[in-house]
């Protein structure tokens, strides 16, 4: 007796030629009226406003809240806002963010308080631009820009490091690391009480690419 289960057979096996051929009625050519009705959509569109953009020659602005590349912001005096807490990485549903925290030491104060983000990477091959990381950020360090041109030709190039993500140093800021604003602590920074850099914090950037080194 065979161990395998045989398919159940009913009657004699049928050949393909045994199945009778049934002729189906074919639709003939439609009337002229019906045909022009089909072209009506095309005709109507000819008078509508053209929405095509000649990208990349022409770049249309995005909506204001478009989710583009991330940016790591700075306090008004130039210190980084990121404290390396990893809440963005925790919130990320695509596991696109990698953060390592680091100590702020007296000679290496990168952000207000004790802790800064020493390593910060976003993998744009994984990122789905949902913005949950921005919602999770407790210091508003992470926001999203409107930049959408993120295509590239290798996987490595699409892992953005902290240097790629940091907001540019603006005029009036001091390049970190530098000490916190005199007589202020991290709480003053979080409450927005630091409005600009103090000359005692270091050479103030003039916005032209050369620090006030004199």
């Amino acid at each position, binding site marked *: 007796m065979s161990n395998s289960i045989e398919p159940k057979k009913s009657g004699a096996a049928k050949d393909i030629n045994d199945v009778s051929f049934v002729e189906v009625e074919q639709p003939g050519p439609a009337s002229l009226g019906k045909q022009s009705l089909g072209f009506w959509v095309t005709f109507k569109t000819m008078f509508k406003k053209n929405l095509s953009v000649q990208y990349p020659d022409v770049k249309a602005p995005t909506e204001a809240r478009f989710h583009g590349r991330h940016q790591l912001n700075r306090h008004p005096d130039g210190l980084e806002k990121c404290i390396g807490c990893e809440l963005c990485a925790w919130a990320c549903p695509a596991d696109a963010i990698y953060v390592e925290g680091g100590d702020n030491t007296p000679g290496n104060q990168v952000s207000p308080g*004790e802790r800064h983000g020493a390593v910060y990477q976003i993998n744009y091959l994984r990122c789905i631009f949902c913005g949950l990381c921005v919602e999770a950020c407790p210091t508003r360090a992470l926001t999203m820009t409107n930049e959408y041109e993120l295509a590239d030709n290798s996987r490595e190039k699409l892992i953005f490091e902290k240097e790629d993500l940091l907001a540019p140093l603006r005029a009036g800021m001091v390049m970190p690391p530098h000490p916190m604003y005199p007589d202020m602590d991290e709480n003053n920074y979080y409450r927005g009480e630091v409005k600009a850099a103090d000359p005692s914090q270091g050479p103030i950037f003039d916005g032209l690419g050369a620090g006030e080194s004199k």
Partner: protein
Amino acid sequence: MTTLANNPTEVTPVEMITVVIDGFEVTVPKGTLIIRAAEKLGIQIPRFCDHPLLDPVGACRQCLVDVEINGRAFPKPQASCTIPVEPNMIVKTQLTSPVADKAQKGVMELLLGNHPLDCPVCDKGGECPLQNQAMSNGNAESRLTGYKRTFEKPINISSQVLLDRERCVLCARCTRFSTQIASDPFITLNHRGALQQVGIYENDPFNSYFSGNTIQICPVGALTGASYRFRARPFDLVSTPSACEHCASGCDMRTDVRRGKTLRRLAGDDAAVNEEWNCDKGRWAFKYVTSTDRLTQPLIRNAEGELVEASWPEALAAAAAGLKGKRAAVLTGGRVTTEDAYGYSKFARIALKTNDIDFRARVSGKEEGDFLAAKVAGNFDVHYSNIDSADHVLLVAFEPEEESPIVFLRINKNFKKRGLKVTSVATKGSIAVDKLKADFIKVAPGAEAAAVAGVALTAKSVILLGERASESAGLISAAVALAEKTGAKLAWIPRRAGERGALEAGALPALLPGGRPVADSAARVDIAAAWGVDSLPDTPGRTTHQIIEALGNNELDAVVVGGVDAHDLLNGRKVLDSLQKSFVVSLEIATSSITEVADVVLPVAAVTEKSGSFLNWEGRSRAFDAAVAESLNRSDLRILSALADAMGESIMLGTVSATAREISQLGKWDGARVQFTPVAPGSAVAATGDQAILTSWRRLLDMGTMQRGEDNLAGTRRQTVAVISEKRANGINVSTGDQIRLSNANGSITLPALVEDIHDDAVWIPRNSFGSQALTSLNAVHGELVTVVKA
């Protein structure tokens, strides 16, 4: 192996009490706290200060519940962590009593009143009982507005423990641990009322060997470790249960790895061994695995005499060519896992056809070898539970806090709970002896044996014999005789984690695996049959010192060395000279004095990178998996197996799990055991004038190779001092803190003096601490004369 089986007479019936908690009946032993009885039902009452291993204190008030006894209710909610159950008690927790729920939420609101909202920068964030319980048992909104209490932060209460006082909820877990468990009362609650805070004494940092446990039990982020600070979040870490490789206590551990790098290790929970504690060395000494001197590629010494990188097939072929047909021996240190030691043992017997194998990379002798073969191998009689039931513990050549810290914690627990009597036969008093209020029998180095013989013990006593017993002639014999006379249990406690496993694996000249004597032909046949070989070598092997000697005078040609440092042996210089003359195959994790003179160096995996098991001093096995799974390093036995294949003498140990299975199938020897021949007790040499008898032991935190790269841990080392007695100090006119010089024909050591309780004829120095390396500087460790003068 349970306590009950060991001590059938000790079982006393426990009175059971039935209480009702949230409408469910539960029956628990008398004396159980309400919070613990609720746990039995699966009812979680929120808590911060409560810890099952610490005395109740009722400090945080978070566990308030409604309690009613015999129909009479307490007027207000009570702390369930301080009230033992009573008959006819009805408890209503937050689940059934709105009053208790409101009380808990109120307490939480008050605790959070001064707690900063800095969870994003706090290391505890994500695994914080305060965070979790604020979510489960707290109000979403707080009525307490305004500024919170702030402190300067963080303060280093030791080089490895940081304190953020504003996060503290004053649960007193850390201070209770330090006084009740470690007996190191270096931290305490300062001030009272609203200003209360944890602090250290003005001049004493928190230099406890067990300080890391306070970080682990802190229910908030007030205590954090300097080496883990800001390194990772709990969700980044992949945790693997592991075993501690630092001593023979046998702690259960957890290793947390992020992207191939070990970031922290925590004490595991094994009630039979380490309970929930471990020592700072086990917790923090893991950076050696990632140190820069790690070997990554096999090395071969070329024609010019330089070590150059080579491929694995080249290196194995070179090693096989140098070993095949030669008179070769094996030295395997006490650091390898049981499976690796078994690999070395099998490799020596099959591939090298010799019994010249010894795991004792330290000062050792024949008396110890006989003792291990006759009394220790295959004997799994003494356990931590025997300390719990002992009436008297005798410490012989054993300094528990320095050499096996968890044994110290267990003795200390019994001393604290029931006044266990402890006697220490030693050359010098110590902090542990003081803490345990032990009877300190002060002896001159070399004369310990006579003192041991006179100690009065009973059948319920336990003798703990340290590995340094081998340094004093007749001491082991005296301990064995005492155990036989009184019926006391005798346990041998080595210092290194792998020694007991290596002993059971037969990495000893007179022993085959499972405690089978080499001299017994039936035992040899037994093993030969299991290994599938015709016969095993029957000539007795050489010990470590004999192997070195034989290499020096060309009685041996080659040696396979695994995890041994020449400077752990007497005459380190001579050891290296002997090895220089021979063909040396070194299996090492990092460059060492041995790899410098080796002809072939084969890199192996460190403990976190491989699986395996360690046997602790009890003989209890703790298996572990590779914590860093992506490591390309292989364990010693894989490499030995490949080397044996290259030699054409297969030992067939492909994987760790297959080896573990082979070991368990061999089982232990049930035939006649080696007879122990006692050695006559030695006596101290006569010291005259400036001469003193040297005695030393290693400190827990010293210059050990596995503590490299961890500066925060090194900061809590005990001070390096030379200890002399008051009489001697007066004789050479020094007082504590003055520099004294110890010298002999080989060299000298200059250290600050400490006048302490030590035999007048003796001088003590740490064996391997910074500035005091007895073996390299004096080439002596115990019982030899040195000259002590004021520097």
